[in-house]
């Protein structure tokens, strides 16, 4: 048998005594195509019906650019805030014992489980001018609700569990004996943090940052209540898409949707690369 024939004869799947491959694989690909892939293709095809000129005009008009600035700016800022506070929370949960710790740990997942509309109206109420927290910020001239600060606050809450849950296991892996050894050898607290702890958790922190950012860019429900939604000022990109759909400007909505899809896929790729980097690093340091 020559090479070409052998290649053709190489099975698409390796033989197994287990039954059910045809049924389950067929159902999986059918359902996936019907629910996810074909609809997504419809989006890209709708945008492709536009000419390049129209497409670029739609995605680069001033209102769209203003919405990118808010969506990306607030998502970046929120992810950066989570980089600091997410690390502190993860550290507290991994290293310290205190009453109520188990409940706090379970509640970290709350933003995952809580519907976004609920967190949206609740945050707006708390941070409004007469709200529990808003009233103390008001005298300092800080307005949170209905400004870009409110958008950042909402995205910080939404991104928080991503950071904590990614950093937590990485921090638990930091070898305490290495820290103790460094300390015995006279290393200071910050030296230990910079040379031992930070290198171990850095891939996890960057992954958490990317996850929180990616979630923030697409977030809709929790943001629109607190945002104010003024064009060019407090209007996020997903809201601009919704407005275009309501005006039956399907092509315009599809064009902006395509931009967001491309960004989502880029982030997905970045997250996969970061996770692979983290795993390689993990193998190296534990050997």
């Amino acid at each position, binding site marked *: 048998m020559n090479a070409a024939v052998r290649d053709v004869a190489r099975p*698409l*799947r*390796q033989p*197994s*005594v*287990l039954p*059910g*491959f045809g049924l*389950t694989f067929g*159902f*999986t690909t059918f*359902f*996936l195509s019907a*629910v996810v*892939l074909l*609809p*997504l293709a*419809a989006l890209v*095809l709708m945008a492709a019906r536009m000419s390049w000129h129209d497409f670029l005009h739609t995605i680069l008009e001033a209102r769209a650019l203003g919405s990118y600035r808010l969506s990306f700016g607030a998502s970046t800022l929120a992810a950066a805030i989570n980089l600091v506070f997410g690390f502190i929370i993860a550290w*507290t949960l991994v290293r310290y014992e*205190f009453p109520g710790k188990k409940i*706090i740990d379970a*509640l970290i*997942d*709350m*933003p*995952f*489980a*809580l*519907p*976004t*509309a*609920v967190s949206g*109206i*609740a945050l707006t*109420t*708390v941070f409004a001018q007469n709200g529990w927290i808003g009233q103390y910020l008001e005298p300092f001239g800080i307005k949170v609700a209905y400004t870009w600060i409110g958008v950042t*606050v909402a995205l*910080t*809450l939404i991104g*928080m569990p991503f950071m904590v849950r990614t950093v937590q296991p990485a921090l638990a892996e930091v070898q305490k004996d290495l820290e*103790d050894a460094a300390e015995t050898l006279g290393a200071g*607290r910050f030296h230990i943090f910079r040379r031992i702890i930070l290198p171990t958790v850095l891939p996890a922190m960057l992954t958490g940052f990317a996850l929180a950012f*990616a979630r923030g*860019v*697409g977030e809709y*429900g929790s943001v629109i209540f607190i945002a104010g939604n003024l064009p060019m000022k407090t209007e996020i990109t*997903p*809201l601009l*898409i*919704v407005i275009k*759909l309501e005006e*039956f400007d*399907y092509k315009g*909505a*599809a064009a902006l*949707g395509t931009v*967001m*899809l491309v960004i*989502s896929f880029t982030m997905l790729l970045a997250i996969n690369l970061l996770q692979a980097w983290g795993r390689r690093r993990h193998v190296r340091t534990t050997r």
Partner: protein
Amino acid sequence: MDAKDVANIFIDEHAARPGRDTLTTSLVRAFFITVSLGFLAALLFAPLATVFVMAFEKGVQAYVHSFVDPDTASAIKLTLFTAAVVVPLNTLFGLAASWAIAKFEFRGKSFLITLIDLPLAVSPVISGMVYVLLFGLQGWFGVWLQDHDISIIFALPGIVLATMFVTFPYVARELIPLMQQLGNDEEEAAITLGAGAWMTFFRVTLPKVRWGLVYGVILCNARAMGEFGAVSVVSGHIRGLTNTMPLHIEILYNEYNFVGAFAVASLLTLLAVLTLIVKTLVERTGYKGH
């Protein structure tokens, strides 16, 4: 605890970790715990408490009364119906996908896994929009559907489809890594000994993965009942007809009916709390979520 005990704790810690400045250690510890709790209090606990304070602001009677409103009742019914359709279908999909992916070796497998996870990477607004572009009036099949008098967008099927898209990966992504990790040995033994395919699945595989399945199903259900963005795009916001609970919250809130809005929100908050409790219980069995 008297002063002697406190002193003993310090001495013990000092003995266990020589060289450590115990006062600074306690200060750092206090600082970290305070900052963590302060951050969570402002961003998480305060909003959670607000939901219930606002819902009961005008008394228990006003709270209960807000559920008597027929539009609220129909929103609750619609949410329950949607979840009752979507969750079983996505569970069935999760079981099929994890069987195909974990039990067999085939080309393009990791690509397939990436595609299944895709809905998680996409903005909820896009998840709803894709169906508008397919079935909306100006969409690919809009004219054909109108000619045949079928409504999908601004109607029940659109809500179900959008919810299905958003919650699509939840069961599959719990089961795939779990089944891969548990291996095929027991199933192969069962088949070799003459058990049928269904018997192997129900008697061997299902009991092994049951906690992962429960975990995936409750997360899928929480998202299905709470989805806002995707459903908002396809629903059309027709009161009493196409409003799910999260959409109804928006309408009541925008009408300044805060008791009503937060009353519905309190139900969804309780659902989230229940979800977290089940999740914690499942994790106590030793199963760690994906």
